[in-house]
């Protein structure tokens, strides 16, 4: 039984309240009561030791979260602000689990002090924001539960495999394929043939993807590409599809290739569905992505849930909140009809 296990048990007990359920007492014998007392005593002892050694503070009752951001740029700060805002809103909500005790959140960047800050046992949960923070925390070999956020879903298995914490989960940066397909169906219902270019970091296999696209009632056209053949493959795929769904992958979509991808798209009048605000700004017809604010809100939800749910992290997930954006100039230029963002959003919500 290692320390993290103990800490988890301890916090779970604390949050669930120590009083056993009524059924626990019903029909209980003296032996059972004695056993219960022994166990309780053991726990009380363990609790007091931990309280003294790990927390060494009177604020022991306040859950503490350390957020480690990968840098100091505004993206991270916006996420953290949104997280804090969300957490304080949740905790002010009387129906939520954190109504009694507010959650203390400390945000730090990756720096030399991080090791000593993070190794401090007082943290109930560490949230990393971004890949660098995730890798840094992993390198510290600490056992505190970690929520890795703002990482590509395809890199989570690698991050997870290097994590020394037993309790960990993730909030990805990228959107689930089904949600992207919902955008296509909501924004351009007549476009059925969906093209996808897969590269080495796409994080999904061709067969699986075909299954998902077919399952959505659309027709998949999937091609593997690399830096050298993307030009030819683009011509080929654009002539066979109604819409190109861009799945984030730096080997496919990057600063160099985006020009080709989009110029061909205009020539073939095939809209591109982008995965980031920058992609839509650059010239994709529409995009679905999560803004820093969207992700911050999800992290906030997750923190609140964690402390109200037995210190259990939800399974790894794509961002709960997302944004739909369209590029009207591109839409009018390639002469397609796309409803307003509000309409698209409500259609996506209604889609099951």
């Amino acid at each position, binding site marked *: 039984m290692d320390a993290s296990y103990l800490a988890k048990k301890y916090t779970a007990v604390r949050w669930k309240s120590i009083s056993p359920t009524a059924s626990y007492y019903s029909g209980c014998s003296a032996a059972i009561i004695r056993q219960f007392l022994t166990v309780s005593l053991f726990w009380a002892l363990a609790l007091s030791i931990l309280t003294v050694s790990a927390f060494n503070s009177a604020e022991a009752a306040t859950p503490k979260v350390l957020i480690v951001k990968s840098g100091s740029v505004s993206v991270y700060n916006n996420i953290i602000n949104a997280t804090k805002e969300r957490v304080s809103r949740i905790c002010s909500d009387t129906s939520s689990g954190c109504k009694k005790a507010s959650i203390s959140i400390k945000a730090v960047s990756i720096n030399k002090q991080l090791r000593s800050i993070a190794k401090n046992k007082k943290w109930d949960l560490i949230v990393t924001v*971004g890949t660098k923070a995730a890798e840094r925390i992993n390198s510290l070999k600490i056992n505190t539960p970690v929520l890795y956020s703002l990482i590509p879903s395809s890199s989570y298995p690698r991050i997870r495999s290097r994590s020394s914490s037993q309790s960990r989960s993730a909030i990805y940066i990228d959107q689930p394929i089904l949600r992207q397909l919902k955008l296509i169906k909501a924004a351009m219902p007549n476009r059925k043939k969906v093209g996808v270019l897969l590269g*080495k970091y796409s994080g999904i296999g061709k067969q699986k993807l075909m299954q998902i696209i077919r399952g959505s009632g659309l027709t998949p056209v999937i091609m593997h590409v690399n830096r050298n053949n993307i030009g030819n493959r683009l011509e080929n795929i654009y002539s066979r599809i109604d819409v190109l769904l861009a799945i984030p992958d730096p080997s496919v979509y990057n600063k160099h290739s985006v020009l080709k991808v989009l110029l061909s798209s205009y020539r073939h009048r095939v809209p591109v569905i982008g995965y980031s605000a*920058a992609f839509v700004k650059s010239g994709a017809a529409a995009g679905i992505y999560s803004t820093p604010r969207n992700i911050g809100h999800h992290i906030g939800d997750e923190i609140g849930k964690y402390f109200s749910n037995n210190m259990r992290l939800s399974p790894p997930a794509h961002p709960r909140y997302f944004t739909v954006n369209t590029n009207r100039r591109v839409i009018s230029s390639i002469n397609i009809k796309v409803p307003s963002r509000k309409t698209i959003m409500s259609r996506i919500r209604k889609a099951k």
Partner: protein
Amino acid sequence: MRNLHTETGNWRAILFCATALAVVPVSHSHATDTVEAVTTPITDAVDSPDLDAVDDVLIADTGTTSEIFSEEYFFSDLPIVFSATRLAQPVSETPVSMTVIDQEMIQASGATEIADLMRLVPGMQVSNYGGDRYFVTYHGRADLYSRSLQVLVDGRSIYDPVIGGVSWTDLPLALEDINRIEVIRGSNAAAYGSNSFSGVINIITEQPSKLQGTLVKASVSNKHTRQVLLRNAGVIGDLDYRLTLNFDEAEGLKTRHDDSTANWLSFRGDYAVNQNNKILFQAGYSNGTQQEGFEGNFWNKPRDTDSTSSFQQIKWTHTTDTDSEYSLHFFHNYIELDDTIIFQHPLTGPIDLITGFSYESHRYELEFQHLLNPTPDLRLAWGTGLRHDNSKSPETLNQDSAAIRNQIHAFINAEWKPTESLTFNLGGMVEKYEGFSGLFSPRVALNYSPIKNHTFRISQSRAYRMPNVWEEQIDMMFRTTGGMPIYQLHKTTEVPDPEEINTIELGYLAAFESIPLTLDVKLFKEKIKPVINYAWDASTRCPACVLDDGAGNFKNDGKMEIDGFEIQLDLDITEDTDLHVVYSHLDASGWQVSRYGGDGLPNGEMDMREAVPEETYGILLSHRFDNGIELSSGYYHTGKLIWLDPGDEVDSYSKWDLRVAKKFKLNDAEIDVAAILHNITDDDYQEYYQVNQAQREFHLQVGVRF
């Protein structure tokens, strides 16, 4: 629905599109009102089916990439590809009527010559001079040089200053390398430069990145054409390149002495310096021989001519982050024709006489252009440039020194879109040729879409055609090989003024998304005055000549009006079946002097009605079968017309073509086999000369791409 948009791949097209695009600057277009689905989150259980799809290979690779795959990938900026200067433009917002011929249509047409594709454009006439020499004209009134059309290849004007036209034969350009051809039907000097008189053929070659790999293509025909095309395209670092080599031999028409060869090489390189700067470099070299002349003609006798041409082109484009673009474009064209004729005349007996059409010309052009969006509803394109033409032709100009012509020009085009349904286009070009007074070519257009999918357009424009070097200063005669003048053939006695065309146009365009139909109707009135007429002039004297009875002369006597309408319809009957129909009805009137008496007064004129065909139409239907077989057929009709000197009156004719092709894969190679029949019915119609009799042509093409 193809052909609804213009390509913006080259500078003139960009300029043109810049003048007509209706847009809001990028800074306004993104992140305007993003919507957050805060209230109804999509649950992860439903939306994360791809979690299990991550496999170990992906994970192992991640660390080795030079590309960052982290949140930075999602939040870092990408180059603004979509900008005012690059985006395709809805045809409904262009100030002109245009026809776009894309690669798909090029293939379906079964055309073996670029010029032949112009049959797909309403109002265009195509003719075969003999051998592999074709020429095109818009609204008739042409000789073999298509003088009134501007032809651009990636922004490079291939209009030759000496002949004042386009030599399609010398063009180092394969049909396979073309991305699309945009044909502007009507004058548009304001956007495409001088000599965009009756229309503009704007050829945009394919980006090398789209052609990666090697193509080997061989063609043969019953006309004894043998063609081999080799192409390799690829990527070296940040450079995309394409190299094409072509070997061509043709035996031409049965009735003509017109065998020809054309061997050429062309290169295109696209170099991305960085996100904001790119350089386009192109070069080509071509060498060929053409048989010329007619049996029984004592001086224009059967002979072999030799031509060489080359070009270099470089264009630097700088895109700023504020959605404006600067470009600097330089090119040099060189053409040399070796056609010296040594003959004996019945009157001079065994003495060798000499004449010929040999010439050598250089054209250098440098141009700067700036595209910008000063306000969301206003777009501007302006630029300035200079041109230097240097032409040498002792045989036709009677001078050993070069004829030099310098030109400077400046242009501006503005597009203003005050409301969603209204687009104003205003443009103008000022050009000044050394020795001529300045010329101003304006264009005004208003596009109005009262109902979605329906656009009405009214436009008015003026353009000029400068006399070419021959028209300006031809002085061609028969001499003895010792240099003694015998007889004057052609001589310009007074430099003619430029031709001027004034056009008013009403257009209607219907383009739907729900049904794959585009209909473009154009009504127009063109007035050309003055014209440059070629006429026999008995008053043109050559006192030193042995025989002095007048000569051909270029003057400004005549005028002409063409009224008419053109219809273009594109219908995608099914996803794999396309129909393209064009029709033009031209009603011309006017005259030009064809003969001057000894007193220099007109004593013969040509009715210009006859130089314009009343009816021209074409239909192209194509279908792609699921098994890779492509079947297409084109039917083209050209009304009766008289081709200007030295052409003949030729009767109306129809030409019916058929193409069957199959694409298949063999190992890693893509193989494309096509059988093409031109003139299925074996009609012996005439083109340009009455002696040019058509025959059925059967072409077989095999292409291997790997």
